[in-house]
């Protein structure tokens, strides 16, 4: 648990004493309390905890979609706003959010159009990321012609298209069934190994967190805070059946303990 503040080489995301309080109609709600977390290049960090624990809020602070009330945070050594303007990260939301009036390729080209890439470059990049998420040949289809899993893959492709080296994912597979989810998890690991991106991944599935991550951040609500940070001893190569190994079960147990500890005051 001590390694939260341990110095790491080359931190991509670095938060110190981060606090965020929302003003709501029912009074202030402390969404984040004293978050210290440093994420190194190439890490796959999962955030897990019950709803209201601030895991999504933290990701949104990194993405400059929420402003912290206190504390400091840097992304690629810059403020989150500067990092956002520099297009330092790709963000995958809970819903695919594809535009129904654009084809899959058109959707992937959307951020590229906004960022001013040339037409030929847009086409090349769209093809490349479509290959990457195993959707080659679906570029001309419209979103409604694709299954939910394929739509979410397209939204990942869209986040990858502009070569940001940070990928922030907010429960991207939350709405999918278990079987599709397993496959997408496998594919995501494969993608992470190939692209060497730094990934921040919000989930509330324990097996998903343990299977994917190099580090698991366990959070608890009211106020949203980090209760445990678990380094995964699992190797980078992870076949699906690693989930039956004793190491896997042990980590999953520790995550579960952490989640339970956060719940005592409920």
């Amino acid at each position: 648990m001590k390694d939260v503040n341990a110095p790491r080489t080359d931190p991509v995301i670095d938060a110190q004493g981060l606090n965020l309080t929302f003003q709501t109609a029912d009074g202030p709600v402390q969404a984040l309390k004293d978050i210290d977390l440093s994420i190194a290049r190439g890490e796959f960090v999962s955030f897990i905890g019950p709803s209201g624990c601030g895991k999504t809020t933290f990701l949104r602070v990194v993405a400059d979609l929420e402003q912290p009330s206190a504390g400091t945070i840097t992304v690629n050594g810059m403020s989150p706003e500067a990092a956002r303007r520099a297009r330092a990260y790709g963000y995958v939301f809970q819903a695919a959010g594809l535009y129904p009036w654009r084809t899959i390729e058109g959707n992937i080209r959307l951020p590229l159009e906004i960022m001013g890439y040339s037409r030929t470059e847009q086409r090349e990049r769209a093809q490349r990321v479509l290959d990457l998420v195993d959707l080659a040949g679906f570029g001309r289809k419209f979103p409604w012609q694709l299954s939910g899993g394929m739509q979410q893959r397209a939204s990942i492709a869209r986040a990858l298209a502009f070569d940001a080296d940070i990928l922030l994912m907010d429960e991207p597979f939350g709405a999918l069934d278990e079987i599709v989810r397993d496959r997408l998890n496998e594919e995501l690991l494969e993608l992470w190994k190939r692209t060497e991106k730094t990934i921040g991944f919000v989930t509330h599935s324990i097996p998903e967190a343990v299977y994917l991550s190099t580090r698991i951040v366990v959070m608890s609500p009211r106020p949203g805070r980090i209760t445990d940070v678990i380094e995964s001893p699992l190797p980078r190569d992870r076949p699906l059946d690693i989930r039956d190994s004793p190491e896997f079960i042990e980590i999953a147990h520790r995550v579960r303990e952490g989640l339970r500890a956060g719940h005592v005051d409920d």
Partner: protein
Amino acid sequence: MKSVLPVLTVVAAILALWYAATVQMNRAWTEDRAARAGVELTFAEVVADTMSQQRPRLPAPHQVVVELWNSTVVEEMTGRRGWWNTGTLSNRSLIHHGWITLSATFLGFAIGTGLGFVLAIGIVHNRAMDASVMPWAIASQTIPIIALAPMIIVVLNSVGIVGLLPKAVIAAYLSFFPVVVGMVKGLRAPDMIQLDQMKTWNASGRDTFLKLRLPSSMPYFFASMKIGVAAALVGTIVGELPVQQGGLGVRLLSGSYYGQTIQIWSALFAAAILAAVLVGVIGLIQRVTLRRMGMAQ
């Protein structure tokens, strides 16, 4: 094709009711005249007479159809002032009057749609407009147009604006409202995820508008244009009443001056047919556009 039978059934029911009402409403006049002439009429004679009066209280459907035909095709092809003989539309034909109404409707609809569009963009992008414009837009629609129209005509006349434009202004006055309401909803249709997404790409306001808000609003835009064009037609007809320079509104009014009920009803039907065609055309454009956008339902 399955939808034809129910539609025909409803039409048949309306026609049956209409004929029954024709007999009932025009009978008094027929019987009165017969009594004064000292003639005894059979029921069949009464029915036949109620459907062939010159100025019935309620014209029979076939009288309206015949009048529609006579005041369009027959008037233009055989009338002394008709298109066939003079090369210009007869001022006694519904085609002539329908065109006057239609041109003012088009102009008014264009102005109204443009105004509604611009106001909606303002409301969505500007906090002050968001708080202030909508109450006024709603208030504007609570004033009966029949009371407002003569004043608009008089005011515009006094500054030298005459002809098509005053009528178009009244049409625009009615048609901007559905466009404002529909487009505000449409431009706000994108959900938080889509707007956040735009922010993560550091998209400009212009990109967010052109690539997200505007395409999202298209189904709303067409729905409000359908209401708007029908409202523009009503506005034009109301605007024609005080102007008295032709149009379906003038036909309605002169018909009521001279008790020409058949003329009133045929002008009413001409207006209804025009409205149906206009709404139909927009519906067609909607289908083609949304299909091309891949948004067809």
